[in-house]
């Protein structure tokens, strides 16, 4: 047995105005789960503690709670000293028990056609990954879109796709899905991260539903404009100034000896909208001995189209991009855009490795910059954090590059998944939440590694937003200036 102290959110609507925390010190067995600590509180301290549980083995989805803010199944999550246990972010009935009924009611039921036959094996295999859901509603609790829109919730759309895939079903699931907020999802993948069954709802349900909607001509007009732009120009954004590719040679040699070599996938935003950041990245590479090869025949990675279900020309884009890098014998392709990086890593099968700029710099190691005299916070781009599993590398560099680094709770800024263009009011509302979170940190600058996040957050806050490479470059410039003045 060991002793742990936990904080539990208590709320009895009959007597309390609002929830409050109580602290309990309990004896639990080695390997105890969160649920067993709740049992210990209930059995030995306060029998009125109310919480739901049933199967105790991760199969019924009754016991989901938030532990230190993250939705988990209490019966499967290991308990730890000092943890905070709160109800899911749903209306609370009492203590840790929430009202799940209204969400469950939105989950569609199959309408089997009377003459329906058993699905074929491939059809069953396609459905199964979407069928593992135990309706614990962790995804609903964590989804940022739900905080600011009438989005029905990730698992609700999961079920729509499960029904689309079932030949026995006779319902019109695409219309249902649109009504339930198909275009509200920013594809931030927070739902995947908290799902006890690891169901990839954005990839396996939402983007697929958007694809079918697209074939029926139901894609949002703003998204259709983007698809047309890519079709006509190979680029997903209109360029407002001379593009990056128009200004750079195919190879940029480093200042000193060559320590490494990467291909550079520029991405549409850095190419046409904010090329300066791409130039900053080139300076950082030069300074650190990394040769950069920049094929000029690269095109849009296709991310804005895949996320919005417009996949008809994706194969063509993939072929062009792979050809552009493979034909030059490049074995590592670097991105400084989280969206491009995630797409090349997850939606392509490339004959070369794809690495985010922070991975490349970590691999080779960098000359330390001078510390900028600022307090900086970091915004995790969804497509870097969850799309590529990168969270620590940027923080390591940032801690080196600024006087003070402060954490900010990670949440989608609202720019992704076509939401900024398609549902601007949602993007704005999520952006406002980022602004509030930034202000909370008291930071002088917000650092990120995604041009979509950068552009969008800059629109929503008056605190400057910068790419990490720009911060590094500023550090180098400061260092040079200091060396010059001391010389």
């Amino acid at each position, binding site marked *: 047995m060991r002793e742990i102290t936990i904080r539990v959110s208590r709320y009895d609507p009959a007597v309390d105005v609002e929830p409050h925390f109580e602290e309990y010190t309990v004896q639990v067995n080695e390997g105890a789960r969160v649920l*067993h600590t709740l049992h210990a509180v209930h*059995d030995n301290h306060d029998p009125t503690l109310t919480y*739901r549980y049933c199967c105790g083995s*991760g199969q019924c989805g009754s016991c989901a709670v938030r532990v230190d803010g993250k939705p988990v199944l209490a019966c499967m999550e290991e308990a730890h000293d000092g943890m905070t246990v709160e109800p899911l972010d749903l209306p609370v009935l009492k203590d840790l028990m929430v009202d799940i009924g209204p969400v469950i009611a939105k989950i569609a039921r*199959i309408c089997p056609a009377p003459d329906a036959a058993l699905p074929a094996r491939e059809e069953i295999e396609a459905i199964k990954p979407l069928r593992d859901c135990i309706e614990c509603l962790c995804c609903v609790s964590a989804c940022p879109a739900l905080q600011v829109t009438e989005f029905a919730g990730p698992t609700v759309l999961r079920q729509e796709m499960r029904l689309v895939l079932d030949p026995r079903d006779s319902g019109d699931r695409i219309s249902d899905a649109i009504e339930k907020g198909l275009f509200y999802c920013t594809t931030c993948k927070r739902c995947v991260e908290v799902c006890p069954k690891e169901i990839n709802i954005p990839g396996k349900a939402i983007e697929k539903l958007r694809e079918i909607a697209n074939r029926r001509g139901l894609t949002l007009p703003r998204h259709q404009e983007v698809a047309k732009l890519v079709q006509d120009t190979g680029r997903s954004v209109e360029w407002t100034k001379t593009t990056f590719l128009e200004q750079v040679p195919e190879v940029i040699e480093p200042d000193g000896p060559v320590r490494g070599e990467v291909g550079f996938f520029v991405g549409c935003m850095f190419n046409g909208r904010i090329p300066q950041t791409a130039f900053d990245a080139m300076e950082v590479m030069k300074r650190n001995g990394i040769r950069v090869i920049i094929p000029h025949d690269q095109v849009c990675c296709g991310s804005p189209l895949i996320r919005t279900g417009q996949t008809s020309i994706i194969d063509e884009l993939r072929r062009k991009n792979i050809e552009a890098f493979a034909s030059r014998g490049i074995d590592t392709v670097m991105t400084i855009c989280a969206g491009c990086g995630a797409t090349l890593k997850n939606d392509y099968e490339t004959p070369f490795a794809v690495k985010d700029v922070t991975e490349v710099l970590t691999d080779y190691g960098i000359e330390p910059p001078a510390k900028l005299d600022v307090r900086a916070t970091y915004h995790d781009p969804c497509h870097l954090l969850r799309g590529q599993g990168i969270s620590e590398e940027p923080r390591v560099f940032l801690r080196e590059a600024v006087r003070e680094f402060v954490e900010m709770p990670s949440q989608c800024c609202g720019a992704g998944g076509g939401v900024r263009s398609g549902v601007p009011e949602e993007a704005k509302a999520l952006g406002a939440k980022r602004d509030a979170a930034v202000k909370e940190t008291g930071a002088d600058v917000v650092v990120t590694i995604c041009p979509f996040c950068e552009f969008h957050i800059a629109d929503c806050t008056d605190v400057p937003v910068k790419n990490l490479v720009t911060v590094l470059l500023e550090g180098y410039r400061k260092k040079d200036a200091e060396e010059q003045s001391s010389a």
Partner: protein
Amino acid sequence: MLVDEIVDAHVLIIGSGGAGARAAIEASRYGSVALASKTIVGKGGCTTMAEGGFNAVLQDLDSIEVHREDTLSGGAYLNDPALVNVLVHEAPERLRDLVRWGAVFDVTDDREVAQRPFGGQRFPRTCYAGDRTGHEMMMTLLDRLDATDTHLYQEVSVIDLARDENGAVAGAIALDRDGDPILFRADATVLATGGGTQCYDISTNSASGTGDGFAMAYRAGAELIDMEMIQFHPTGAVYPYDARGRLVTEAVRGEGGILLNERRERFMKRYDPDRMELSTRDVVARAIATEVLEGHGTKHGGVYLDVTHLPAERIESRIPVMLEQFLAFGVDIRKEPMEVAPTAHHVMGGLRITPECRTTIPGLFACGEVTGGVHGANRLGGNALADTQVFGKRAGEFAGKSPERSGRVDEAWIEGVFGMLDDFYEGATSPAAVRKDLKLTMWTQAGIFRNSPDLATALTHVRRLADRRLFAASATNLIECCTVRNMCTTASLIVRCALLRPENRGAHVRRDMDVITTNPVKSPFGHTYVSLSREGIEEREVKP
């Protein structure tokens, strides 16, 4: 009347697992249906946790007769043959119902429902949806239930059956989440409350497997049979401590998993060399328990269950829930063996029913694990899910066809129930403490290996626990008090029946001097029975 909320329905279904949901679907064809579930519908009960599968004869090479014979032989011929007949004949059609309603069972390349081998069966007849078969069934049943007019009462715990002045069951009284009473009045009541192995310290059951149905029916005067027949599933998790007893599905062995003792010996060859790991559950459970008792167990007190010789892809696709659960506890079953030991799993005994699911008291029907007779002295893996559907449908149908009841609910009885609830506020003992004591008592003194002195001690102690004055700290704690009271009643029924059967049969093994050795086919003993008015064991004439 003391109750503010009164619900009238033609049929009241108590329980929302596989049997209750199926009963409601069927009953709704005949009139209004109220379904009372002490959990969120679809999340409670054991069906949703059932992993392995559903036995049904679907192939020409298989036969109903062989399924019948496997079930009787596996049940040590204690099964009620009429109920077994119904089970094996109707299971295929009940499976087809589920498929028609949208269930996502695994299928073969030939577009037929896939079947896997399970213990004690001569044909691979266990249909499955990976290792989440029961969950798949529940999701499908809920879809179908939603298309009926059944009114669901969620998180409403029935605490006692109501009687009318003629002695017929007339509905039930329940407490909602806040502890407020609801009186259900119905022409017919279906008990589908599932099992009760939560009475044991180590159990696979969900938190709702507390035996409420056995206890409530017993108090209402119904007769129960074979309550001593507790299935100890051979393979439950042993580590960490709080996860002990968690089911490790028989599908692991069905897919080729082998059992090894601490010396890495495949010990089943000494217990059942023909069927090995796929022997019946009673045999495998005793083999594992014996290995551990004789000192050949692992450090956590189990044996190894090993699938590391199987291709990783097969483990990932056929037993993904097992993979996920063990990973959560730090064991990658693709690379290292699981540690397992027996765990209380299923109550084979229960309410005595007819093939029309009628209990021994008028107005009360029952289906699923709360009934006895279908599985005899040992249940075959895969027969429980079939049981829920076959008898769930029948209970719903015959309850639905019941005539309108003429009597009124006995008000004196309601006053009695309220008196009991009031007493809980004046009680002194924490229900949690009684529950813990009860579970340990049952595990150590009425477990896999039994003897009459231990059973007698257990009965005395359980009765003492049942007499404790339980304390409810608030209205919401009343349900917990009622549940613990029911657990004590169920435990006493198990022990009483265990003392009544003087032979070793199926899951019931006594290691004391008084025990008689019998051949199951020729045993002179039939069902044990217990009710408020009588208890005993049936004896039958056997040809020498």
